[in-house]
């Protein structure tokens, strides 16, 4: 098995040396911060002793690749100046769960498709993604229903598993392998026992999750376009858009200009299909006039159109939309057959 040859392990007591070495090697390290009781992703420089003792980050890592607000270019007296802050430097993203890593691989399909999005690509190319196997799924998690798993490797360069005494580090991509090679003096070959322990953790986590049968959902939704399936969720929906902001695969954006005297900038900002202005024509016509059409659009985009266009469901089962919806709309109730 190839895995047994390349899988590395590191004692937990040496992990701080590993993260410190990452920072010393010129990487910006983004990893878990547990300050304030909620796990978030933060840049880690001073306290490299990270712990993976959390369920999932409150927000996904979407912002690191598609910032909530990003300058596309600047203007000065009618001249276009491409964004100067072009080079973000090399980065390591440590500790996102496999669902969020899979979301990155889905975003790749949109943003790296020709013509590639220069801003996204730059951030993506300069980042090594080390995801951490999920051992404690939440009530709202359903990654195994949408083709994921607590140990999915899609979108990750390296998969880390917290084994109690040590961390298992399995390279997934050549980029991940090259990265680990830089720090080979700090790691050792993983043992067979460690690999077995990982399997046990993954199986246990997967067994805690409910499974929804989504076989053929793209066709099922396409057939249900004109049905009353969308009535219940849309009648309750406030159109706040929080589901789309928390969603690790929602990538819709707006482009707007800001001008102060003769200097200006063109910004791209997150937008949401849940807003009426999203599709409003200058003429006043709106092809999605009510929350029903907008709710339907969100579900169709994730579970039908994306399957047609990219061969993938654009949902990773992280459950954030369920957790944060102010009127308790549960996506699972809509997608269940």
């Amino acid at each position, binding site marked *: 098995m190839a895995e047994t040859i390349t899988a590395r392990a590191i004692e937990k007591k040496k992990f701080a040396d590993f993260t410190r070495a990452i920072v010393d090697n010129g990487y910006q390290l983004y990893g878990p911060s547990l300050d304030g009781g909620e796990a978030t992703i933060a840049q880690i420089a001073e306290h490299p002793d990270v712990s993976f003792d959390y369920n999932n980050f409150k927000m996904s890592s979407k912002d690191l690749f598609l910032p909530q607000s990003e300058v*596309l*270019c600047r*203007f000065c007296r*009618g*001249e*276009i100046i*491409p964004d100067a802050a072009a080079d973000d430097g090399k980065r390591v993203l440590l500790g996102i769960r496999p669902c969020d890593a899979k979301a990155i691989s889905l975003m790749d399909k*949109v*943003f790296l*498709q020709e*013509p*590639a*999005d*220069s*801003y996204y690509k730059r951030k993506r190319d300069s980042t090594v993604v080390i995801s951490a196997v999920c051992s404690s799924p939440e009530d709202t998690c359903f990654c195994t229903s949408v083709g994921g798993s607590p140990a999915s490797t899609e979108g990750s360069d390296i998969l880390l598993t917290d084994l109690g005494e040590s961390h298992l580090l399995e390279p997934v991509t050549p980029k991940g392998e090259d990265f680990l090679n830089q720090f080979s003096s700090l790691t050792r070959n993983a043992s067979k026992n460690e690999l077995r322990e990982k399997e046990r953790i993954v199986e246990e986590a997967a067994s805690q999750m409910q499974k929804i049968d989504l076989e053929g959902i793209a066709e099922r939704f396409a057939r249900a*376009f004109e049905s009353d399936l969308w009535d219940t969720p849309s009648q309750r929906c406030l159109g706040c858009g929080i589901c789309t902001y928390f969603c690790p695969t929602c*990538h*819709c*954006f*707006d*482009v*707007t*200009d*800001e*001008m102060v005297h003769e200097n*200006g900038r*063109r910004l*791209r900002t997150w*937008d949401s*299909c849940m807003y009426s202005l*999203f*599709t*409003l*024509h*200058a*003429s006043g*016509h709106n*092809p*999605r006039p009510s929350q029903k*059409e907008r709710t339907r*659009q969100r579900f*169709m*985009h994730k579970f*039908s*159109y994306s399957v*047609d*266009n990219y061969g993938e469901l654009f949902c990773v089962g992280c459950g954030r939309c369920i957790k944060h919806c102010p009127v308790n709309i549960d996506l699972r109730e809509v997608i269940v057959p």
Partner: protein
Amino acid sequence: MKTENAKSKIRNPYIPYPVRIDKITIENADRDLKTLKLVFLNKEDEEAFQYLPGQFAELSVFGKGESPIGIASSPTEEGYLLFTVKRVGVLTSDLHNSEEGRIIGVRGPLGKPYPLDVMEGKNVVIIGGGFAFTTLRSTIRYILAPENRSRFQKVTCIYGARSPGELMYKEELKEWEANPDIDMYITVDKGDESWTGREGFVPTVLKQVAPSADNAIALVCGPPIMLKFTFPVLLELDFPPEMIVVSLEMRMKCGIGKCGRCNIGNTYVCKDGPVYTYQQLRSLPAEY
């Protein structure tokens, strides 16, 4: 002024090319339609901007934003681009207030052109209503160009506007009416005292003209209400749904299938359209 596009091999698809507004023409009596003649500041940008009739571009006004507008010029007209812009919102009002010489941006070409390969060797029926006639003007200019004319058979054009004053490209319409290479049927919903031409809505005139569907393809561009009544007439004339071609409009931002707002079903108007066949359109949700 150099742009990033000119300097870098890998093009940043969000950076517009700088262009100068060379000439502004008021097209209609209501004065809310102006044609902007744009000239590239950099020769290499002009060379990179290779387009065909039916494509569009984002017009970029620094500080105001971008707006997707169909390209009204034909690639056979070298050295400039034409865009006919209706004054509707913030950006288009700002464009209308422009003076000649102003520098703006153009980002594109975007979208798919009319299916010129399918049109080749066929009779082409061009049906336009109102200010949506822009990319059809591009198509007519393209077909009538000496180097292209023999690639297409008979060309018939039905073009209608609300009133005589609202007809665009008046000088060219006169030229085309006198040109044996194209059969022009110009109509207005309602004429005035001086109007001696045809009166009637586009679908009605289409029914009267009754172009043969034999080895023919129809290109339709107009307001939704015109489209709604034109499709049944074309079907009645035996045009197969795949030989009815239509161009759609949608609110857009990126123009390259990423920002997620202009989709109709599983297609993005910006990259899979704006040109659709009636056959495609029938299989998509009526969300446009």
